[in-house]
């Protein structure tokens, strides 16, 4: 890898700009995402900035179980994010559709529609798990742009999740359902 690519990889890891999108969430995860930017967790230390436009973003943070109405919007916004990009699914809903499973108004889980890089399960997940997930996504994004890493979904086990899902079963289940 030449020095410029090395520098680029280094900078991509340290400057993840987020675009937050709600796909029918109950607002619990959205509040936790905002909480991860507040003084207690301060994600700006990692260079995180919550951006207003998907065109500026590197990482798409999606909450909610993906309702019927949200599918096209998600696909549009995903295409609007300029590469290299990564997707973080925040909460149990985008990973498994959670308690809304089998609802006829849902099109979830999220990875049926767009490729997801990091799952942060929890209902809602803790802000520190979200910050860890974003850091992981930034790393994946930088490595993918430098063509170093095969892309596989990652799971960030939360406190409540770890009890029943030690090996990150949400990510595994999601990975097995990925459509070509």
């Amino acid at each position, binding site marked *: 890898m030449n020095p410029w690519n090395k520098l680029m990889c280094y900078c991509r890891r*340290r400057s993840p*700009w987020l675009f937050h999108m709600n796909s029918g969430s109950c607002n619990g995860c959205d509040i936790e995402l905002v909480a991860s930017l*507040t*003084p207690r967790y*301060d994600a700006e230390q990692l*260079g995180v900035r919550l951006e207003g436009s998907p*065109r500026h973003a*590197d990482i798409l943070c999606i909450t909610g179980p993906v309702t019927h109405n949200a599918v096209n919007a998600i696909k549009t916004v995903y295409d609007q994010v*300029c590469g290299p990009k990564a997707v973080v699914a925040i909460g149990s809903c985008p990973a498994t559709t959670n308690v809304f499973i089998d609802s006829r108004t849902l099109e979830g889980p999220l990875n049926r529609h767009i490729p997801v890089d990091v799952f942060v399960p929890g209902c809602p997940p803790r802000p520190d798990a979200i910050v860890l997930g974003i850091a992981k996504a930034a790393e994946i994004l930088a490595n993918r742009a430098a063509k170093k890493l095969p892309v596989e979904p990652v799971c960030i086990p939360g406190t409540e999740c770890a009890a029943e899902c030690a090996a990150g079963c949400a990510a595994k289940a999601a990975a097995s359902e990925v459509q070509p």
Partner: protein
Amino acid sequence: MNLTTALARLLIFPGLLFAVPAAWFFLWVERKSVALMQGRIGPPFMQPFYDFIKLLGKTTPPRSGVGGLLMRLWPLLAVSAAAGAVGLLPVLPSSGGFEGDLILLLALLELPSMCIIAAGFSSGSIFGEIGSAREAILSVSYNVVFLLAIISIAASQHTFRLEALAALPASPLRWLGVLAILVCLPAKLHINPFSLPNAEQEIYSGPMTEYAGPELAMWELSHGLEWVAATGLVATLAAPHLTTWWLAALVFVALSFAVVLLLSAVAAATARLQIDTTVRFYWQCTLIFAVLAVASALFMRLRA
């Protein structure tokens, strides 16, 4: 001013070689001080540099036709205008300059804001258009105060030459002018309480909504250079006249830094005002400073 000194000023000090790192430094100081005032730790020292490099490496959406060409052109124009404005500042003693360079500086300071307005309209995004309209209204409001303040300073000292202005002893009118310029700076730099054009919670990113990758990097850079130019203008007018060049440069940097801290404190302490409140605020300020400017001009003419 011959060609060599002009090029040296534009490219080395206080031009690009100094101004680009200074722009990143001021952007960092702004973010870091706001974070500290909010009880956070804030971004690392090199953050604006990381952001800039990362944006250079991102792809841009395909743009075609004249509209696409214009969209690529505006950020470059903004960066070159802001860099030119920084290059004109008389930081070092007896560094040259020409009669009327204050007017050129004002024009160059105004160009980035014009570019933002044009960029929002040529992007075709509804949020960009609203942001551009707000920027235009804002610019009409604060520029009256800004220009009158500068004109009153220049009229009181009988010159439009920056270096001569910086060298003359300070008068009460000049301090009033510096105060008026300070009132205008938050609007010029789009920070709270006048961050209307890029009001994130209302209109996404305003005129910048459709920009991505290297173009956005240029906008960030031009914003940083605007910080350097605007705070540098205040530092030039407020600095005492020094003949030692390194002391002059040091005082310039220290004063600019103090202005950045002051503006960040204002930004952290206030919330965004509505557009009509903002316009009313500036037009009411204008009335006071307009009277002062006209009075000073009349006084000067009577005395001459």
